[in-house]
């Protein structure tokens, strides 16, 4: 086993990894942004809706949570355009999938957050004469966001790692870049070591930054 590590070839193609990392982040950010909108709308709808709407939203959440992400990615990229007359690029398809995927998790996060807002605060909002919409916007949502911020951060970090799955439909994100270098240089150990380090460092940096934001907001609880 005379394998000696040689990173030279990795550095020569480092732009593939760097560009991939940036794309991974981009995919994660766009997906969570859309996912937050889906999650918020459905969670608010859920807590105020009747049994039928609740059942439909619950079914969506259960479906997404019990199907492997990679399968959803295949379904949306290969399956949907086969049945419906739709054309979209691989990155678009992936963002779509990841948004719907994260939305399902965030519905749960936001719903439990909304239900955790103390009743007394809502009473206080009623007592000063706020309308239901004003109570939602000015009382319930701000408190809910503070409660759910840690879960939101965790979801985002997970989502960032999940972007690696986009490599299966040839989206040139970080993992795809690593595969490309591996195929072209055969430096499998080096390339995956470097890639792992990049995921780790980025993940920790995100976590650190998000915890700072959380701490700022925690003062307000």
């Amino acid at each position, binding site marked *: 086993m005379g394998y000696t590590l040689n990173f030279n070839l990795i550095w020569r193609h480092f732009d593939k990894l760097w560009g991939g990392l940036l794309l991974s982040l981009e995919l994660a950010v766009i997906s969570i942004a859309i996912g937050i909108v889906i999650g918020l709308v459905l969670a608010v709808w859920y807590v105020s809706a009747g049994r039928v709407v609740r059942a439909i939203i619950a079914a969506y959440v259960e479906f997404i949570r019990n199907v492997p992400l990679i399968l959803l990615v295949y379904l949306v990229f290969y399956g949907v355009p086969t049945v419906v007359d739709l054309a979209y690029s691989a990155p678009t398809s992936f963002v779509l999938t990841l948004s719907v995927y994260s939305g399902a998790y965030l519905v749960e996060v936001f719903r439990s957050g909304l239900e955790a807002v103390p009743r007394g605060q809502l*009473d206080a909002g009623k*007592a000063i004469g*706020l309308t239901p919409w004003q109570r939602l916007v000015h009382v319930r949502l701000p408190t809910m966001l503070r409660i759910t911020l840690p879960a939101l951060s965790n979801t985002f970090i997970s989502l960032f790692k999940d972007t690696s799955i986009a490599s299966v439909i040839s989206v040139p994100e970080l993992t795809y870049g690593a595969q490309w270098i591996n195929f072209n240089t055969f430096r499998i150990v080096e390339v995956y070591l470097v890639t792992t380090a990049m995921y780790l460092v980025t993940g920790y940096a995100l976590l650190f930054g998000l915890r700072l934001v959380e701490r700022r907001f925690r003062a307000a609880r």
Partner: protein
Amino acid sequence: MATSLNDTTALLDIAGVSKAFGSVEVLRSVSLKVEKGEVVTVIGPSGSGKTTLLRCVNFLESYDSGSIRIDGKEVGFREAGARQRRSERDLAAMRAETGMVFQSFNLFPHLTAAGNIMLGLIKVRGKSKAEARQIAEHWLGRVGLAHKADSLPAELSGGQQQRVGIARAVAMEPKILLLDEITSALDPELVGEVLAVVRSLAEDGMTMVMVTHEMAFARDASSRIVFMADGGVSAVGPPKEILAQETTNERLRSFLARFRASHF
């Protein structure tokens, strides 16, 4: 339905209000009139319906029958036709006419002391931000917290939070202020500062209905005491009269006896 030909000029007119939670009757045909400028304290054992009655006045709780009128306007239900709950928008407008202070303060945790007061002024009263800020600072001054305008609730003591709660309620210039056991969650040494604020509001002529366990305060600061037991008004009258009834009203006697045993 109460008739509209009531001879009353009472600011608050509670007439035959009943309410049940499932099979438990919490209010049994409660009637009570409160004149403008009166301070009415409601006492009674826990479970007697005091808090529920108060929460019916601003329709945080609905009531099954009877009527509650403020300035002649039915609070929770439409005036004409069959008994029908007001729309949420109407209810919000009605609630803006009453102020409420809660046992557990219920400040908005994400807003500063001033922000808590300003929210209703801006969103409900339509004041500008600057104007609302000015009013907030005025009332924070009144409750002795001018220097805490930009503090978050979490940075305030219980007594301070409750004083912000009072300021938030009165800044809206309500016709009537509802106080729900506002000192019950406070450490004993903080009760005095909160009651002092209530006293000064009473001197200003603010109409108040206050559920309380502070018997000395009820005796000294209220125009009338309402003693509730088992969901009904068992006795009502000026403090002296009520306390004198201790010999004739068995319920009142046992309540006061138990009260004294636990508080003194």
